[in-house]
């Protein structure tokens, strides 16, 4: 085995930290003494092996623990014997060198009993607790927390004292506290331990403390009970926060899907049942862009969404203009016919995509910069979800600004409020109609890009959103963008808060029934448009 400088440094560090190690014997010497003496002697040697801090110590102890450490009779070499009874192979326990098959009687096993196994486990714990690799130290501390053992109290205390990394030290402190609880140390130490664990996250608190709920000492039981209750309330609070976050995330998905509809249906009064399919086209645009980048320039994959967003907007917007010019234009003032005609468009688009891309789900990748997750308290926020929340807000406010402050927005509102008057003032109403519909479609395309990150990209993608989007728009009040905003977020949040006690499907049914009843009560939605025009 090559002697790596890193190992040297690590060994050196350990030597500095634990000065008594300097006098310890080498690993080879200690192993050589293993077969001698009784189990107690072996336990002492095991402890010494751990104290060498030799990086090979772990594999030796592991072999010993498994009962696979044997000594070759011929040359006294220590090997690890694995395999079935008649087909054994040996490897050198120190170097890992493969020594090939061995005969059954040519080696002598180093025997272990249960007491010794316990010592070995402790020693192994100590070894990994002090491992030079921080990731393994952390893992060891967490493992010790999961299965606390009184034997580890001292090892953990030592590790804590030596630890420089704050995160790992916290983990070790908690593991130490758990070990203290499991030991027979005095009451005060245990009470301190409960306090230490009480600061951990709720799940850890419950895992660790549940066993001591009915501890013999009344003070301890009381402290444990208090810590558990506190953890439970904290967890409840965080799960509310979690629900809220999931709700906002779902709400922003609904918002994205519904904004485009809020324009075509809300502003223009056109029932566009092909809206879901326009969303689907946006998702397939993303897929196509990614495919092209993957095959031609994989190094630019991180930019795929940045390319897909404007492309989807323009492409799907163009499809929208085509639909408006080809079909919807002839059906103004006949909403039910528009509904049927656009349903026909949706069927054709679905089948077209199915014919071109196939009926199966397509894989749309998430760029590296967007994946990953953030932890706030006990709440996990995943990258794509955060991106969608931000993106939908950006689209919403962008649209709001466009409607309010651009010349096109002004013309759009003028045409929808009073078409003949707008035409008299020189606005090309047909042109504005086409562009408005195209804008709604383009936003559906943007929604498709976003949804491709969290949903299956298949020809049926749009079907799942169409009814929800309509309900959002109707619930919020037709012709009112802020109403759509409020409706989407409140429906999303309500849905997620219903889910824990009603289940996902039933929660959705409850919401649907609620909206159906709500519309009966207030047919014009949450925020109806006031004035004479609203009666239609």
């Amino acid at each position: 085995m090559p002697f790596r400088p890193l190992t040297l440094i690590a060994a050196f560090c350990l030597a500095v930290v634990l000065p008594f190690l300097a006098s310890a014997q080498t690993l080879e010497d200690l192993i050589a003494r293993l077969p001698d003496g009784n189990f107690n002697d072996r336990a002492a040697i095991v402890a010494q092996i751990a104290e060498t801090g030799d990086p090979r110590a772990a594999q030796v102890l592991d072999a010993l623990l498994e009962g696979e450490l044997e000594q070759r009779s011929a040359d006294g070499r220590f090997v690890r014997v694995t395999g079935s009874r008649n087909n054994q192979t040996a490897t050198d326990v120190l170097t890992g060198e493969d020594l090939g098959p061995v005969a059954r009687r040519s080696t002598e096993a180093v025997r272990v009993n249960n007491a010794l196994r316990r010592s070995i486990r402790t020693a192994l714990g100590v070894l990994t607790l002090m491992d030079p690799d921080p990731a393994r130290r952390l893992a060891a501390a967490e493992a010790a927390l999961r299965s606390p053992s009184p034997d580890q109290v001292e090892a953990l205390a030592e590790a804590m004292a030596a630890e420089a990394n704050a995160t790992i030290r916290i983990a070790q402190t908690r593991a130490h506290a758990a070990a203290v609880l499991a030991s027979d140390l005095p009451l005060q130490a245990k009470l301190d331990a409960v306090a230490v664990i009480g600061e951990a996250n709720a799940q850890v608190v419950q895992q660790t403390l549940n066993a001591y709920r009915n501890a013999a000492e009344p003070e301890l039981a009381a402290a444990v009970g208090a810590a558990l209750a506190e953890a439970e309330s904290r967890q409840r609070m965080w799960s509310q926060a979690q629900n809220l976050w999931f709700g906002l995330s779902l709400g922003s998905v609904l918002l994205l899907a519904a904004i485009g509809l809020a324009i075509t249906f809300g502003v223009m009064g056109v029932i566009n049942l092909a809206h879901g399919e326009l969303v689907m086209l946006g998702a397939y645009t993303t897929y196509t862009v990614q495919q092209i980048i993957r095959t031609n320039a994989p190094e630019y994959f991180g930019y795929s969404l940045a390319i897909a967003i404007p492309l989807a907007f323009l492409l799907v917007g163009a499809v929208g203009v085509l639909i408006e010019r080809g079909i919807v234009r002839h059906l103004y003032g006949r909403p039910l016919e528009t509904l049927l005609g656009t349903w026909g468009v949706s069927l054709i688009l679905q089948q077209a995509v199915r014919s071109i891309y196939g009926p199966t789900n397509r894989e749309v990748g998430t760029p590296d910069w967007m994946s990953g997750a953030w932890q706030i308290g006990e709440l996990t926020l995943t990258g794509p979800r955060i991106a969608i929340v931000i993106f939908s807000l950006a689209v919403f406010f962008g649209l709001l600004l466009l409607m309010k402050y651009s010349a096109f927005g002004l013309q759009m509102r003028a045409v929808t409020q009073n078409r003949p008057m707008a035409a008299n003032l020189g606005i090309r109403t047909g042109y504005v109609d086409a562009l408005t519909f195209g804008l709604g479609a383009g936003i559906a395309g943007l929604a498709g890009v976003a949804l491709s990150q969290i949903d299956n990209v298949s020809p049926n993608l749009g079907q799942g959103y169409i009814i929800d989007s309509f309900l959002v728009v109707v619930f919020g009040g037709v012709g009112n963008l802020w109403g759509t905003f409020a409706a989407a977020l409140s429906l999303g949040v309500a849905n997620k808060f219903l889910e824990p006690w009603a289940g996902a499907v039933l929660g959705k049914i409850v919401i649907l029934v609620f909206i159906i009843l709500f519309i009966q009560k207030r047919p014009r939605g949450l925020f109806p448009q006031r004035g004479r025009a609203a009666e239609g």
Partner: protein
Amino acid sequence: MTRLIDLRLGLFLAALFAVTVLAPLATTLPSTSALNLPSYLIPLMGKYLCYALLAVALDLCWGYAGILSLGHGAFFALGGYAMGMHLMREIGARGVYANPELPDFMVFLGWTELPWFWYGFDMFWFAAVMALLVPGLLAFVFGWFAFRSRVSGVYLSIITQALTFALLLAFFRNDMGFGGNNGLTDFRDVLGFSLSAPSTRIALFVLTAVALAGCMLLARAITISKAGKVLVAVRDAESRTRFLGYRVESYSVFVFTVSAMMAGLAGALYVPQVGIINPGEFAPANSIEIVVWVALGGRGTLVGAAIGALVVVALKSWLTATFPDLWLFALGGLFILVTLALPNGLLGLLDRLKPRQAKPAAEVPA
């Protein structure tokens, strides 16, 4: 006074009668004969007639009262489930698990007793009543709420669609007690007659034809009555009718409920002939497809709705078998064609080709 049976309806009923008599006869001919009808086609034709009945039901409320329901598939499916529940109970101990009381899927789910809403479905008359009553009641309650709040037009369409979507989700759940995803199937017999026997199939087919004819006459009777005139007035000018002192919502609820019960009847006749009912029947797409049948045939004509259903369903059977990829293109194209070029459907086209006297073509706004 308009006659109950005008020329169109008379011709249609005559054709229906001829088919109902001739088709069963044709199955008895030797298989070498050119006129022989394979007996497996009988349930298929029965199924088509069920669809025609469903289309007539929708035409009654859409064509005459302007209520575009995108949830008629739900009423159809509810009727179907009511009949399916009876057929499940009639399997009795012949199921896979041989449980005399519980249908197979309940045994499979580990249930030990029948849920309360399955009580009574072992009796045929009860199931038959329920097949009409459940859709009727749902339509009555739903319509009562909706029309009283003056929810109409597109809003009504959207919430009826939401209704069938909610039912779809609900019936997919296993613990609803309706067989979940798989629905109800493996039926054996009805009233003691085996469902696979040719004679039972013919009887069901004839029954469906009779039901279709009966419902068309009923719908016609409603539309030519005074109430029917009011309905047309509601369709064309709802506010004006209200100002004239008519209770618009009463008329709307009435016709919506009758229509839903017809749809339920169609579903109840459909299930024994097809042999299965599953939550897929609640899919919003199915309900919209019904609309295109009516639109293609001609809204507000009853006969046209039935013909539209037969034409589209036959086209669907043929296309999905020979060019499966083309079916959705064809259906989508049909929707666009009907809305852009054929606002009064095939019958309207007929009227335009042969202008009769000076009678102005009936105008049917949405």
